[in-house]
Protein backbone atom coordinates (compact mmCIF):
# COMPACT_ATOMS: atom_id res chain seq x y z
CA UNK A 1 0.00 0.00 0.00
CA UNK A 2 1.12 3.50 -0.84
CA UNK A 3 2.03 4.98 2.54
CA UNK A 4 1.96 8.62 1.42
CA UNK A 5 -1.71 9.11 2.32
CA UNK A 6 -3.90 8.03 5.20
CA UNK A 7 -7.00 5.81 4.78
CA UNK A 8 -9.21 8.71 5.93
CA UNK A 9 -7.83 10.82 3.07
CA UNK A 10 -8.67 8.13 0.50
CA UNK A 11 -12.24 7.87 1.83
CA UNK A 12 -12.74 11.64 1.93
CA UNK A 13 -11.50 11.95 -1.68
CA UNK A 14 -13.91 9.22 -2.84
CA UNK A 15 -16.84 10.76 -0.95
CA UNK A 16 -16.04 14.19 -2.44
CA UNK A 17 -16.37 12.62 -5.91
CA UNK A 18 -19.67 10.96 -4.98
CA UNK A 19 -21.01 14.34 -3.85
CA UNK A 20 -20.64 15.60 -7.42
CA UNK A 21 -22.02 18.88 -8.73
CA UNK A 22 -24.79 19.88 -6.32
CA UNK A 23 -26.04 22.96 -4.49
CA UNK A 24 -26.24 22.05 -0.79
CA UNK A 25 -24.52 19.28 1.19
CA UNK A 26 -25.38 18.75 4.84
CA UNK A 27 -23.31 16.71 7.29
CA UNK A 28 -24.76 15.35 10.53
CA UNK A 29 -23.26 14.64 13.94
CA UNK A 30 -20.16 12.51 14.48
CA UNK A 31 -19.19 12.47 10.78
CA UNK A 32 -15.62 13.79 10.48
CA UNK A 33 -14.77 11.96 7.21
CA UNK A 34 -17.91 13.14 5.38
CA UNK A 35 -17.25 16.63 6.78
CA UNK A 36 -13.73 16.49 5.31
CA UNK A 37 -15.20 15.38 1.97
CA UNK A 38 -17.86 18.09 1.91
CA UNK A 39 -15.34 20.85 2.72
CA UNK A 40 -13.01 19.41 0.05
CA UNK A 41 -15.85 19.52 -2.51
CA UNK A 42 -16.50 23.15 -1.53
CA UNK A 43 -12.83 24.08 -1.96
CA UNK A 44 -12.72 22.40 -5.39
CA UNK A 45 -15.95 24.13 -6.41
CA UNK A 46 -14.78 27.59 -5.28
CA UNK A 47 -17.44 27.92 -2.63
CA UNK A 48 -20.15 25.63 -4.08
CA UNK A 49 -21.79 23.48 -2.84
CA UNK A 50 -23.01 25.13 0.30
CA UNK A 51 -21.79 22.94 3.16
CA UNK A 52 -23.72 22.84 6.41
CA UNK A 53 -21.98 20.99 9.22
CA UNK A 54 -24.35 20.27 12.11
CA UNK A 55 -22.96 21.68 15.32
CA UNK A 56 -20.46 24.01 13.68
CA UNK A 57 -21.06 27.74 14.22
CA UNK A 58 -18.67 28.60 11.37
CA UNK A 59 -20.06 26.18 8.81
CA UNK A 60 -23.80 26.48 8.96
CA UNK A 61 -26.22 28.64 7.07
CA UNK A 62 -29.13 28.02 9.41
CA UNK A 63 -30.72 30.99 11.13
CA UNK A 64 -34.10 29.44 11.95
CA UNK A 65 -33.07 26.80 14.45
CA UNK A 66 -32.27 23.11 14.32
CA UNK A 67 -35.52 22.29 12.54
CA UNK A 68 -34.48 24.26 9.44
CA UNK A 69 -32.28 21.39 8.15
CA UNK A 70 -35.25 19.03 8.20
CA UNK A 71 -37.65 21.58 6.75
CA UNK A 72 -35.14 22.21 3.93
CA UNK A 73 -34.69 18.47 3.36
CA UNK A 74 -38.44 17.90 3.34
CA UNK A 75 -38.72 20.41 0.50
CA UNK A 76 -35.81 18.92 -1.47
CA UNK A 77 -33.36 21.73 -0.66
CA UNK A 78 -30.69 19.33 0.67
CA UNK A 79 -29.03 17.37 -2.15
CA UNK A 80 -26.59 15.16 -0.24
CA UNK A 81 -26.54 13.77 3.29
CA UNK A 82 -24.49 11.07 5.05
CA UNK A 83 -25.65 8.28 7.30
CA UNK A 84 -23.96 5.42 9.08
CA UNK A 85 -25.21 2.56 11.19
CA UNK A 86 -24.25 0.23 13.97
CA UNK A 87 -25.61 -2.30 11.47
CA UNK A 88 -26.27 -1.92 7.73
CA UNK A 89 -27.89 -4.74 5.76
CA UNK A 90 -27.97 -5.78 2.10
CA UNK A 91 -31.32 -4.05 1.50
CA UNK A 92 -29.80 -0.74 2.62
CA UNK A 93 -31.65 -0.74 5.95
CA UNK A 94 -29.72 1.05 8.69
CA UNK A 95 -29.77 0.47 12.45
CA UNK A 96 -28.68 3.25 14.80
CA UNK A 97 -30.58 1.98 17.84
CA UNK A 98 -29.72 -1.43 19.26
CA UNK A 99 -28.50 -4.99 18.76
CA UNK A 100 -30.79 -7.82 19.84
CA UNK A 101 -34.45 -7.49 20.76
CA UNK A 102 -35.46 -3.81 21.08
CA UNK A 103 -37.04 -4.38 24.51
CA UNK A 104 -34.06 -6.38 25.80
CA UNK A 105 -31.09 -5.13 23.79
CA UNK A 106 -27.58 -6.54 24.02
CA UNK A 107 -25.97 -3.32 22.80
CA UNK A 108 -27.44 0.17 22.69
CA UNK A 109 -26.31 2.79 20.15
CA UNK A 110 -27.03 6.54 20.54
CA UNK A 111 -30.27 6.57 18.51
CA UNK A 112 -31.74 7.22 15.07
CA UNK A 113 -30.94 10.98 14.90
CA UNK A 114 -32.66 12.41 11.77
CA UNK A 115 -32.30 9.25 9.70
CA UNK A 116 -35.96 8.20 9.83
CA UNK A 117 -36.79 11.36 7.86
CA UNK A 118 -33.65 12.34 5.93
CA UNK A 119 -33.10 8.87 4.37
CA UNK A 120 -36.48 9.25 2.65
CA UNK A 121 -36.23 12.80 1.37
CA UNK A 122 -32.56 13.55 0.51
CA UNK A 123 -31.90 12.41 -3.10
CA UNK A 124 -28.31 11.30 -2.53
CA UNK A 125 -27.60 9.63 0.80
CA UNK A 126 -24.04 8.31 1.09
CA UNK A 127 -23.61 5.57 3.68
CA UNK A 128 -20.25 5.31 5.42
CA UNK A 129 -18.96 2.81 7.92
CA UNK A 130 -15.26 2.67 8.79
CA UNK A 131 -15.57 -0.76 10.39
CA UNK A 132 -16.28 -3.20 7.53
CA UNK A 133 -17.03 -6.51 9.24
CA UNK A 134 -19.74 -9.17 9.54
CA UNK A 135 -20.67 -7.48 12.81
CA UNK A 136 -21.58 -4.22 11.04
CA UNK A 137 -22.58 -5.35 7.51
CA UNK A 138 -25.25 -7.91 8.33
CA UNK A 139 -27.86 -10.00 6.45
CA UNK A 140 -30.67 -8.21 8.30
CA UNK A 141 -30.54 -5.34 10.79
CA UNK A 142 -32.02 -5.91 14.27
CA UNK A 143 -33.78 -2.52 14.25
CA UNK A 144 -34.73 -0.47 11.20
CA UNK A 145 -33.95 3.17 12.01
CA UNK A 146 -34.67 3.87 8.34
CA UNK A 147 -35.35 1.43 5.49
CA UNK A 148 -33.27 1.29 2.28
CA UNK A 149 -36.39 1.25 0.13
CA UNK A 150 -40.12 1.86 0.55
CA UNK A 151 -43.41 0.57 -0.87
CA UNK A 152 -44.50 2.26 -4.09
CA UNK A 153 -47.12 4.51 -2.52
CA UNK A 154 -44.78 5.90 0.19
CA UNK A 155 -43.35 9.37 -0.49
CA UNK A 156 -39.69 8.58 -1.14
CA UNK A 157 -37.74 10.95 -3.39
CA UNK A 158 -34.52 10.04 -1.54
CA UNK A 159 -32.42 7.12 -0.40
CA UNK A 160 -29.00 5.46 -0.49
CA UNK A 161 -26.72 5.73 -3.54
CA UNK A 162 -23.46 4.29 -2.14
CA UNK A 163 -21.77 2.71 0.86
CA UNK A 164 -18.10 3.40 1.53
CA UNK A 165 -16.12 1.43 4.10
CA UNK A 166 -12.51 1.06 5.19
CA UNK A 167 -12.17 -1.77 2.63
CA UNK A 168 -14.21 -0.79 -0.45
CA UNK A 169 -16.85 1.26 -2.22
CA UNK A 170 -20.33 -0.15 -3.07
CA UNK A 171 -23.01 1.51 -5.18
CA UNK A 172 -26.69 0.97 -4.33
CA UNK A 173 -29.54 0.65 -6.84
CA UNK A 174 -32.74 -1.41 -7.17
CA UNK A 175 -32.47 -2.53 -3.56
CA UNK A 176 -28.99 -4.09 -3.83
CA UNK A 177 -25.35 -3.19 -3.33
CA UNK A 178 -22.76 -3.63 -6.11
CA UNK A 179 -19.02 -3.63 -5.42
CA UNK A 180 -17.48 -0.70 -7.33
CA UNK A 181 -13.83 -0.76 -6.21
CA UNK A 182 -11.57 -2.15 -3.51
CA UNK A 183 -9.20 0.18 -1.66
CA UNK A 184 -5.42 -0.23 -2.05
CA UNK A 185 -4.11 -2.94 0.26
CA UNK A 186 -7.44 -4.81 0.35
CA UNK A 187 -8.83 -7.64 -1.83
CA UNK A 188 -12.17 -8.80 -3.21
CA UNK A 189 -11.83 -12.08 -1.28
CA UNK A 190 -11.36 -10.09 1.93
CA UNK A 191 -14.45 -7.99 1.15
CA UNK A 192 -16.54 -11.14 0.56
CA UNK A 193 -15.17 -12.70 3.75
CA UNK A 194 -16.06 -9.64 5.86
CA UNK A 195 -19.48 -8.78 4.41
CA UNK A 196 -22.54 -10.38 5.98
CA UNK A 197 -24.86 -9.69 3.02
CA UNK A 198 -24.90 -10.72 -0.66
CA UNK A 199 -23.88 -8.15 -3.23
CA UNK A 200 -23.25 -7.97 -6.98
CA UNK A 201 -19.81 -7.46 -8.50
CA UNK A 202 -18.24 -7.27 -11.96
CA UNK A 203 -15.78 -9.98 -13.12
CA UNK A 204 -12.90 -7.59 -12.59
CA UNK A 205 -13.09 -5.19 -9.66
CA UNK A 206 -10.82 -2.13 -9.99
CA UNK A 207 -8.70 -0.68 -7.20
CA UNK A 208 -9.95 2.58 -5.67
CA UNK A 209 -7.71 5.32 -7.12
CA UNK A 210 -5.53 7.12 -4.55
CA UNK A 211 -6.04 10.85 -3.91
CA UNK A 212 -3.89 13.03 -6.17
CA UNK A 213 -1.04 15.12 -4.72
CA UNK A 214 -3.10 18.27 -5.39
CA UNK A 215 -6.07 16.82 -3.49
CA UNK A 216 -3.87 15.82 -0.56
CA UNK A 217 -2.36 19.30 -0.41
CA UNK A 218 -5.81 20.90 -0.46
CA UNK A 219 -7.08 18.54 2.24
CA UNK A 220 -4.11 18.99 4.54
CA UNK A 221 -3.48 22.71 4.13
CA UNK A 222 -6.92 24.21 3.54
CA UNK A 223 -9.58 21.74 4.69
CA UNK A 224 -7.94 20.38 7.87
CA UNK A 225 -7.75 23.74 9.69
CA UNK A 226 -11.46 24.33 8.96
CA UNK A 227 -12.26 20.87 10.29
CA UNK A 228 -10.45 21.47 13.58
CA UNK A 229 -13.22 23.83 14.78
CA UNK A 230 -15.77 20.99 14.97
CA UNK A 231 -13.59 17.87 15.10
CA UNK A 232 -10.47 18.86 17.05
CA UNK A 233 -9.54 15.27 17.96
CA UNK A 234 -9.98 13.98 14.41
CA UNK A 235 -8.11 16.92 12.88
CA UNK A 236 -5.24 16.43 15.30
CA UNK A 237 -5.13 12.66 14.82
CA UNK A 238 -5.41 12.56 11.01
CA UNK A 239 -3.87 15.86 9.94
CA UNK A 240 -1.80 16.85 12.98
CA UNK A 241 -3.53 20.23 12.96
CA UNK A 242 -3.94 20.85 16.70
CA UNK A 243 -0.39 19.73 17.42
CA UNK A 244 1.05 22.07 14.78
CA UNK A 245 -0.98 24.96 16.23
CA UNK A 246 0.44 24.39 19.70
CA UNK A 247 3.98 24.01 18.34
CA UNK A 248 3.58 27.31 16.45
Amino acid at each position, binding site marked *: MNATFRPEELLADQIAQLIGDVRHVAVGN*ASPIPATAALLARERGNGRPYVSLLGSPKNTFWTD*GARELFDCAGQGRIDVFFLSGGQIDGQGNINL*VSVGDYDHPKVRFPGSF*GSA*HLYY*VVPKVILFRTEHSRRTLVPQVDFISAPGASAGNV*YRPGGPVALITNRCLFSFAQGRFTLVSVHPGHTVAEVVENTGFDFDRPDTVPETPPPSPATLKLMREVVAPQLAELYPQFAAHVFGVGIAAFAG
Partner: protein
Amino acid sequence: MTAFQTVKSLDEALLPIVDGCLLVVPREVSGVPMTATRALVRRGVRDLHLVALPTSSLQADLLIGAGCVATLETSAVSLGEYGPAPRFSAAILGRTITMKDATCPALHSALQAAEKGVPFMPLRGLIGSDVLKYRDDWKVIDSPFGNADPIVLLPAIKPDVALFHAPMADRFGNVWIGRQRELATMAHAADKTIATVEKIHDGNLLDDPILAAGTLPGFYVESVAVCERGAWPLPLPDHYSADGEHLALYARMAATAEGFAEYVDRYVHDKRAA
Protein backbone atom coordinates in the same frame (compact mmCIF):
# COMPACT_ATOMS: atom_id res chain seq x y z
CA MET B 1 -42.85 50.51 33.98
CA THR B 2 -41.58 48.49 36.90
CA ALA B 3 -39.91 45.23 36.02
CA PHE B 4 -41.79 42.21 37.36
CA GLN B 5 -39.45 40.11 39.47
CA THR B 6 -38.39 37.56 36.84
CA VAL B 7 -34.72 37.45 37.84
CA LYS B 8 -34.33 35.05 40.76
CA SER B 9 -31.77 32.89 42.52
CA LEU B 10 -31.05 29.65 40.64
CA ASP B 11 -32.78 27.35 43.14
CA GLU B 12 -35.82 29.60 43.27
CA ALA B 13 -35.95 29.83 39.48
CA LEU B 14 -35.91 26.03 39.18
CA LEU B 15 -38.88 25.46 41.57
CA PRO B 16 -41.42 24.82 38.76
CA ILE B 17 -39.40 21.73 37.79
CA VAL B 18 -41.18 19.35 40.13
CA ASP B 19 -40.99 15.55 40.34
CA GLY B 20 -42.68 13.91 37.36
CA CYS B 21 -42.82 17.00 35.17
CA LEU B 22 -42.45 17.05 31.39
CA LEU B 23 -39.22 18.96 30.85
CA VAL B 24 -37.81 19.96 27.46
CA VAL B 25 -34.12 20.81 27.05
CA PRO B 26 -32.06 21.73 23.99
CA ARG B 27 -29.45 19.77 22.06
CA GLU B 28 -25.83 19.71 23.17
CA VAL B 29 -24.66 22.72 21.15
CA SER B 30 -27.59 25.13 21.62
CA GLY B 31 -27.12 26.36 25.16
CA VAL B 32 -27.52 23.49 27.61
CA PRO B 33 -28.16 24.71 31.18
CA MET B 34 -25.53 22.61 32.92
CA THR B 35 -25.24 24.68 36.11
CA ALA B 36 -29.02 24.37 36.47
CA THR B 37 -28.81 20.64 35.71
CA ARG B 38 -26.28 20.14 38.50
CA ALA B 39 -28.60 22.10 40.82
CA LEU B 40 -31.49 19.77 39.90
CA VAL B 41 -29.34 16.73 40.68
CA ARG B 42 -28.36 18.26 44.04
CA ARG B 43 -32.04 18.90 44.82
CA GLY B 44 -32.79 15.28 43.87
CA VAL B 45 -35.61 15.81 41.36
CA ARG B 46 -37.24 12.49 40.38
CA ASP B 47 -39.33 10.86 37.63
CA LEU B 48 -38.76 13.50 34.97
CA HIS B 49 -40.21 12.95 31.52
CA LEU B 50 -37.24 14.43 29.72
CA VAL B 51 -37.57 15.57 26.11
CA ALA B 52 -34.19 16.43 24.55
CA LEU B 53 -34.76 18.53 21.43
CA PRO B 54 -33.77 16.64 19.41
CA THR B 55 -30.67 14.99 20.96
CA SER B 56 -28.56 15.26 24.10
CA SER B 57 -25.11 14.51 25.44
CA LEU B 58 -23.79 15.13 28.96
CA GLN B 59 -27.02 16.62 30.32
CA ALA B 60 -29.26 13.60 29.69
CA ASP B 61 -26.50 11.21 30.71
CA LEU B 62 -25.95 13.02 34.02
CA LEU B 63 -29.68 13.25 34.84
CA ILE B 64 -30.19 9.57 33.98
CA GLY B 65 -27.16 8.45 35.95
CA ALA B 66 -28.32 10.45 38.98
CA GLY B 67 -31.72 8.75 38.88
CA CYS B 68 -33.72 11.87 37.94
CA VAL B 69 -35.35 10.48 34.77
CA ALA B 70 -38.29 8.08 34.40
CA THR B 71 -38.92 8.58 30.68
CA LEU B 72 -36.58 9.84 27.99
CA GLU B 73 -37.90 11.03 24.66
CA THR B 74 -35.19 11.92 22.15
CA SER B 75 -33.48 10.94 18.89
CA ALA B 76 -30.01 10.15 20.25
CA VAL B 77 -27.79 10.44 23.32
CA SER B 78 -24.05 10.39 22.79
CA LEU B 79 -20.91 12.14 23.98
CA GLY B 80 -19.94 12.69 20.33
CA GLU B 81 -16.17 12.57 19.89
CA TYR B 82 -15.84 11.39 23.49
CA GLY B 83 -17.79 8.20 22.85
CA PRO B 84 -21.11 6.64 23.87
CA ALA B 85 -23.15 8.12 26.71
CA PRO B 86 -22.36 5.53 29.40
CA ARG B 87 -25.18 6.10 31.93
CA PHE B 88 -27.77 6.28 29.13
CA SER B 89 -26.53 2.98 27.68
CA ALA B 90 -26.50 1.34 31.12
CA ALA B 91 -30.06 2.54 31.83
CA ILE B 92 -31.36 1.13 28.53
CA LEU B 93 -29.60 -2.21 29.00
CA GLY B 94 -30.74 -2.35 32.64
CA ARG B 95 -34.27 -1.20 31.66
CA THR B 96 -34.32 1.43 34.41
CA ILE B 97 -35.86 4.16 32.19
CA THR B 98 -38.64 4.15 29.62
CA MET B 99 -37.23 5.09 26.22
CA LYS B 100 -39.31 6.78 23.56
CA ASP B 101 -37.05 6.63 20.52
CA ALA B 102 -37.78 9.43 18.06
CA THR B 103 -36.19 11.05 15.03
CA CYS B 104 -35.03 14.67 15.12
CA PRO B 105 -37.69 16.34 12.93
CA ALA B 106 -40.46 14.44 14.74
CA LEU B 107 -39.58 16.22 17.98
CA HIS B 108 -39.26 19.60 16.26
CA SER B 109 -42.65 19.06 14.59
CA ALA B 110 -44.39 17.86 17.75
CA LEU B 111 -43.24 20.99 19.60
CA GLN B 112 -44.29 23.14 16.66
CA ALA B 113 -47.76 21.64 16.94
CA ALA B 114 -47.89 22.76 20.59
CA GLU B 115 -46.52 26.16 19.58
CA LYS B 116 -49.41 26.57 17.14
CA GLY B 117 -51.99 25.19 19.56
CA VAL B 118 -52.97 22.36 17.19
CA PRO B 119 -53.26 18.69 18.24
CA PHE B 120 -50.75 17.14 15.82
CA MET B 121 -48.34 17.71 12.98
CA PRO B 122 -47.76 15.52 9.90
CA LEU B 123 -44.24 14.43 8.91
CA ARG B 124 -42.75 12.68 5.88
CA GLY B 125 -40.49 9.66 6.28
CA LEU B 126 -40.85 7.16 9.15
CA ILE B 127 -43.15 4.70 7.33
CA GLY B 128 -41.55 1.24 7.30
CA SER B 129 -39.13 2.09 10.13
CA ASP B 130 -39.04 0.45 13.54
CA VAL B 131 -38.95 3.93 15.06
CA LEU B 132 -42.59 4.22 13.98
CA LYS B 133 -43.37 0.59 14.86
CA TYR B 134 -42.48 1.13 18.53
CA ARG B 135 -44.36 4.44 18.90
CA ASP B 136 -48.01 3.59 19.54
CA ASP B 137 -48.69 7.30 20.11
CA TRP B 138 -47.89 8.08 16.44
CA LYS B 139 -50.46 7.35 13.72
CA VAL B 140 -50.43 6.83 9.95
CA ILE B 141 -53.31 8.20 7.90
CA ASP B 142 -53.96 8.61 4.20
CA SER B 143 -53.44 12.28 3.45
CA PRO B 144 -56.91 13.83 3.02
CA PHE B 145 -55.37 15.97 0.26
CA GLY B 146 -53.62 13.11 -1.57
CA ASN B 147 -54.42 9.95 -3.46
CA ALA B 148 -53.44 6.90 -1.38
CA ASP B 149 -50.64 8.97 0.16
CA PRO B 150 -49.85 7.62 3.64
CA ILE B 151 -48.33 10.11 6.12
CA VAL B 152 -47.43 10.01 9.82
CA LEU B 153 -49.16 12.21 12.39
CA LEU B 154 -47.32 13.18 15.58
CA PRO B 155 -49.25 14.38 18.64
CA ALA B 156 -48.23 17.78 20.02
CA ILE B 157 -45.66 17.76 22.83
CA LYS B 158 -46.69 20.35 25.41
CA PRO B 159 -43.94 20.51 28.05
CA ASP B 160 -44.60 21.71 31.57
CA VAL B 161 -41.24 23.49 31.54
CA ALA B 162 -38.63 24.50 28.97
CA LEU B 163 -35.15 24.99 30.46
CA PHE B 164 -32.14 26.42 28.61
CA HIS B 165 -29.05 28.61 28.94
CA ALA B 166 -28.64 31.81 26.91
CA PRO B 167 -26.15 34.68 26.66
CA MET B 168 -28.24 37.37 28.35
CA ALA B 169 -31.59 38.58 29.61
CA ASP B 170 -32.91 41.93 30.78
CA ARG B 171 -34.82 42.82 33.95
CA PHE B 172 -38.11 42.60 32.06
CA GLY B 173 -37.61 38.86 31.49
CA ASN B 174 -36.73 39.21 27.80
CA VAL B 175 -34.07 36.64 26.91
CA TRP B 176 -31.61 37.05 24.05
CA ILE B 177 -31.22 33.68 22.28
CA GLY B 178 -29.59 34.89 19.06
CA ARG B 179 -29.89 32.38 16.24
CA GLN B 180 -30.67 29.39 18.48
CA ARG B 181 -34.26 29.53 17.33
CA GLU B 182 -35.18 26.08 18.67
CA LEU B 183 -35.04 27.73 22.10
CA ALA B 184 -37.94 29.92 20.99
CA THR B 185 -39.87 26.87 19.74
CA MET B 186 -39.34 25.19 23.13
CA ALA B 187 -40.49 28.28 25.00
CA HIS B 188 -43.52 28.81 22.75
CA ALA B 189 -44.57 25.18 23.28
CA ALA B 190 -43.99 24.98 27.05
CA ASP B 191 -46.28 26.09 29.83
CA LYS B 192 -43.36 27.76 31.65
CA THR B 193 -39.87 28.74 30.52
CA ILE B 194 -36.84 29.01 32.78
CA ALA B 195 -33.66 30.52 31.35
CA THR B 196 -30.25 30.71 32.92
CA VAL B 197 -28.06 33.43 31.41
CA GLU B 198 -24.46 34.60 31.44
CA LYS B 199 -25.41 38.15 32.39
CA ILE B 200 -28.16 40.74 32.80
CA HIS B 201 -28.38 43.32 30.02
CA ASP B 202 -28.93 46.88 31.19
CA GLY B 203 -32.01 48.33 29.54
CA ASN B 204 -34.66 46.58 27.44
CA LEU B 205 -33.55 44.09 24.76
CA LEU B 206 -36.65 44.88 22.71
CA ASP B 207 -35.63 48.55 22.36
CA ASP B 208 -32.87 47.66 19.89
CA PRO B 209 -34.26 46.18 16.64
CA ILE B 210 -31.09 44.16 16.00
CA LEU B 211 -31.18 42.58 19.45
CA ALA B 212 -34.98 42.30 19.35
CA ALA B 213 -34.82 39.92 16.36
CA GLY B 214 -32.94 37.40 18.51
CA THR B 215 -34.98 37.98 21.65
CA LEU B 216 -37.56 35.74 23.29
CA PRO B 217 -40.15 38.14 24.72
CA GLY B 218 -40.58 38.11 28.48
CA PHE B 219 -44.22 37.06 28.40
CA TYR B 220 -43.07 33.50 27.69
CA VAL B 221 -40.55 33.55 30.52
CA GLU B 222 -41.32 32.43 34.09
CA SER B 223 -37.90 33.02 35.59
CA VAL B 224 -34.32 33.96 34.81
CA ALA B 225 -31.24 33.14 36.88
CA VAL B 226 -27.71 34.37 36.27
CA CYS B 227 -25.17 31.55 35.90
CA GLU B 228 -21.81 32.60 34.54
CA ARG B 229 -20.37 29.87 32.31
CA GLY B 230 -23.70 28.17 32.89
CA ALA B 231 -23.29 25.73 29.98
CA TRP B 232 -19.89 24.43 31.19
CA PRO B 233 -18.46 21.96 30.26
CA LEU B 234 -20.68 22.16 27.16
CA PRO B 235 -20.35 25.09 24.75
CA LEU B 236 -22.40 28.27 24.57
CA PRO B 237 -22.66 29.04 20.83
CA ASP B 238 -20.75 32.15 19.74
CA HIS B 239 -19.48 32.61 23.33
CA TYR B 240 -17.32 29.72 24.51
CA SER B 241 -16.46 26.25 23.31
CA ALA B 242 -16.77 22.88 25.01
CA ASP B 243 -14.26 21.87 27.68
CA GLY B 244 -13.00 18.78 25.88
CA GLU B 245 -10.68 17.76 28.66
CA HIS B 246 -13.54 17.69 31.15
CA LEU B 247 -15.85 15.80 28.76
CA ALA B 248 -13.14 13.19 28.26
CA LEU B 249 -12.80 12.97 32.06
CA TYR B 250 -16.56 12.49 32.38
CA ALA B 251 -16.54 9.77 29.71
CA ARG B 252 -13.83 7.91 31.60
CA MET B 253 -15.37 8.29 35.07
CA ALA B 254 -18.98 7.60 34.04
CA ALA B 255 -17.99 4.34 32.33
CA THR B 256 -18.73 2.60 35.65
CA ALA B 257 -21.44 3.24 38.27
CA GLU B 258 -18.76 3.76 40.92
CA GLY B 259 -16.83 6.23 38.77
CA PHE B 260 -20.04 8.11 38.01
CA ALA B 261 -20.86 8.38 41.73
CA GLU B 262 -17.40 9.80 42.33
CA TYR B 263 -17.90 12.29 39.46
CA VAL B 264 -21.21 13.46 40.99
CA ASP B 265 -19.61 13.86 44.40
CA ARG B 266 -16.75 15.87 43.01
CA TYR B 267 -18.37 18.02 40.32
CA VAL B 268 -22.06 18.20 41.29
CA HIS B 269 -21.87 18.22 45.10
CA ASP B 270 -18.51 19.96 44.92
CA LYS B 271 -16.86 17.58 47.39
CA ARG B 272 -13.22 17.82 46.40
CA ALA B 273 -10.99 14.85 46.99
CA ALA B 274 -8.47 15.65 49.73
